[in-house]
């Protein structure tokens, strides 16, 4: 075993191809990590600027509670803060989806999914799907990140190193000597493959160390990085195993590399894309359905219409129904407007639920299919840890939906009670966003 190891090492040491490929791989790793980090930083910076603006708006809102009501401007500010119906009209809700530090390793779909929104308490769906500015052409092409190097390039590196491990001996006419001198051919080549297992494990360890020490921020969960390292190692062992199996078929080196490349194309591109496309077909998502709830709410000044809307609203939300309804309510328009907005959002919730169910069914099936394909499985693992997959996006949307519901409830309760918000009430009861 020791001499075999030495032989293989001497062979690799003298191989220019090995060093060139290794150099390219490490350069690619550095580039992928740098790319992932700059993407992560850009998103963090954007979110930070939103948070800053949000804080400013919050502080201004607090100031408005104590605005000088002698001046016209101060009076307006005071009413906008303390009258629930006015506050609801002018309120803006900033929500954001903080990227996980592990998204430095795998950008996933973070460049496609919206990660921040400015919402209004009502008409949630008008703004929920608005997205970051991006060039669709670069989105189509995709990114080079750390995961890309592992899923796409490492298998190629291994194929290049091992496609002729058995065939080389045969083509150099030394296989007969080997057959005489070793008792078990499979065992002999298996041991030689173990050397490659060791080499690739070391290379992966170096890659993960570079990622952890240089690119990932301090305090990153070591256990997650370790699990990803183990999964990546298992993935590379799959490719080495496949290469050994194909080598042992005893075909020529050209046949071996052809089969291995077809396998690479099959596992990394063809199978995921075919399954994904079939699932898109099976579970189509009609975002267009939400257009019914994106449109701006409009109601007339007719009090009879307001009463009609409010009757439907109270039937759905009895908690807001006043115990002693006024004969002539000055806030009739505002209340009916918000009620209509809430009923519209409720209808939107149903369409949105159907959309999400379809997306989840699609995602669920794809995640199960991933167990048939190591490339898909590794992609799934990385995206799960870096929270860059569809399920993470849907969780974020669900949270936003709930949070929006809480903010809406805060204003609706007060609008339908005494239409008042006090500073204490606002400080204590206004829902905080934390996702």
């Amino acid at each position, binding site marked *: 075993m020791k001499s075999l190891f030495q032989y293989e090492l001497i062979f690799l040491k003298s191989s220019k191809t090995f060093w060139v490929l290794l150099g390219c791989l490490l350069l690619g790793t550095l580039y992928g990590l740098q790319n992932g980090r700059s993407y992560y930083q850009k998103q963090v910076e954007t979110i930070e600027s939103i948070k800053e603006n949000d804080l400013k708006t919050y502080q201004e809102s607090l100031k408005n509670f104590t605005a000088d009501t002698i001046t016209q401007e101060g009076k307006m500010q005071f009413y906008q803060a303390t009258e629930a119906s006015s506050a609801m009209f002018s309120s803006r809700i900033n929500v954001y989806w903080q990227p996980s530090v592990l998204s430095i390793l795998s950008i996933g779909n973070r460049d496609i999914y919206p990660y921040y929104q400015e919402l209004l308490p009502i008409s949630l769906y008008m703004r929920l799907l608005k997205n*970051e*500015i991006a*060039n669709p*052409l*670069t989105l189509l092409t995709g990114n080079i990140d750390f995961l890309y190097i592992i899923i796409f390039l490492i298998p190629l590196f291994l194929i290049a190193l091992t496609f002729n491990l058995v065939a080389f001996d045969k083509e150099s006419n030394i296989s007969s000597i080997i057959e005489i001198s070793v008792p078990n051919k499979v065992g002999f080549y298996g041991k030689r493959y173990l050397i490659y297992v060791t080499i690739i494990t070391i290379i992966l360890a170096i890659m993960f160390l570079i990622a952890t020490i240089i690119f990932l921020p301090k305090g990153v969960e070591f256990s997650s990085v370790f699990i990803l390292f183990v999964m990546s190692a298992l993935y590379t062992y799959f490719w080495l195993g496949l290469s050994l199996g194909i080598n042992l078929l005893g075909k020529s080196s*050209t046949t071996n590399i052809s089969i291995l490349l077809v396998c690479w194309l099959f596992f990394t591109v063809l199978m995921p894309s075919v399954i994904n496309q079939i699932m898109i077909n099976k579970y189509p998502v009609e975002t267009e359905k939400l257009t019914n709830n994106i449109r701006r709410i409009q109601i007339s000044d007719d009090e009879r219409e307001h009463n009609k809307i409010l009757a439907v609203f109270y039937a759905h939300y009895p908690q807001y129904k006043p115990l002693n309804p006024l004969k002539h309510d000055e806030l009739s328009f505002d209340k009916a407007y918000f009620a209509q907005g809430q009923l519209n959002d409720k209808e939107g919730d149903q369409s949105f639920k159907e959309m999400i169910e379809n997306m989840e069914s699609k995602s669920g099936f794809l995640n199960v299919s991933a167990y048939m394909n190591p490339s898909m499985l590794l992609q799934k693992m990385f995206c799960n840890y870096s929270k860059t997959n569809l399920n993470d996006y849907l969780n974020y949307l669900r949270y936003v939906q709930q949070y929006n519901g809480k903010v809406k409830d805060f204003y609706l309760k007060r609008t339908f009670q005494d239409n008042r918000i006090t500073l204490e009430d606002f400080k204590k009861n206004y829902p905080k966003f934390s996702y």
Partner: protein
Amino acid sequence: MAVLSILIKNELKLLSQNKVLKWLSITILLLGIIALWISINEYKFENATRSYFQEKHRRMWLEQPPKNPHMAAHYGTFAFKPANPLSLFDKGIRNFSGSFTYLEAHRQNDFVGSPAQNSSIYLRMGEFNLSFLLQFAIPLLILAIASGMFSKEKQHGIYSFITTNSVSGSVLFYAKSLAIFSMILGIIFLIFAGTFFISLLSGIDWNSQQIGAILLLFLMYLLFYFCLINLTLIISLNAHSFKSAFIMSCSAWIFLFFLLPRLASNFANDFYPLPSNIAFKSAIKKDIDNGIDGHSRGKREEIVIDSLLKKYKVDSTNKLPINIDGVLLMKGEGYSSTVYEIHFKKLQHKIFQQRAVSTYLGVINPFLLIRNISMSLCNNNLENEFDFREKAEVYRNYFVQKLNENMMLKSKEGEFKTYKIHQKEFNQIKDFSYQGLRLFQSLQSCMIDIILLLGLLFFIQLFITKIK
């Protein structure tokens, strides 16, 4: 010429015995059938959905209760990107761009509902459709056949025997090249003709522009494959063995088809970074806030009012023959649209700069060229995307200003709550309808790519003629 045709026949005979070619061709055709089935279903679904919602929102527009014109402008409508049958051949950026937008007064809303936004991460591992087969699988087939054509003969000494006995190297090269080309021609003819006729049978209508685009696309793919066949043969000719020719071709395929496009896209993002949506919107808001918004009465509004009072020689806005609110709304809309246009043009310029990176890299990568040509001819490229956005914005301006004009001419100041228009007036606003770019415009948008592809082909031919 006679020698060339004998040589081609001989090469074709050899190719017909090639098992790799046979099995890969069958696999590609089978995959083509699956891709076509999926694409036709997708197209039909998209077409039915978009048409349904476009009609529904038109109905909603017409059936809205009587209201003030400006309120109707706020109620707004939607512009849906129509389904495009050419997407059967190449979807281009379609999955990554929004499919509809809400059109209303004062605001240019984002285009939302991109299919990618609803997709899982596996979408990024590749999209399975005809363009995948045409741009990835067939080049792989070419590589598998062509990389061994010279190297094997050189290994066995046949090449020097033939070239020293009256047949020049370039003639032999063309014989091999044309033989492979005729096989590929057969395969892509089957794909194109099959797609066209199956889609016809499944009820998809093609207009003359689209048929022209398909024919041109067919021609462009032929040029691309001819280029690729020759490049692989050049590698095969210069390699010392079949193995090294094959490995070199494979490496080139991986680099050109998988790595370089992503590198180009990442570099483009680094060189020409796009602003965040929040920064983009705040810059527009800042500029609009300093102008006329149509609802408030600031300095600029006062200038407009003064000029009108002078023009009509009256001392108060309620004595004007037109409604001042309508005038200010029209001015405000015009102003915000101009501001938006200026900012959007800047953004558009940056996006085109990003694309230019991959266009110029096309000099060394024919894949990038055919990708751009294909998505352009299939009306699914950036130009089409921007054209749709522009037309939607033109329509938004049209209906909002038409309604503001109605308010300005037919109502008086202070009649906002009492002056109302009805279905007759709503009906006078034409519905939004969009036709993609004409074939000539699509061709214009990929002219550089076509010229570069032809240039590449020309240089390859120069090289071939020098082979002895």
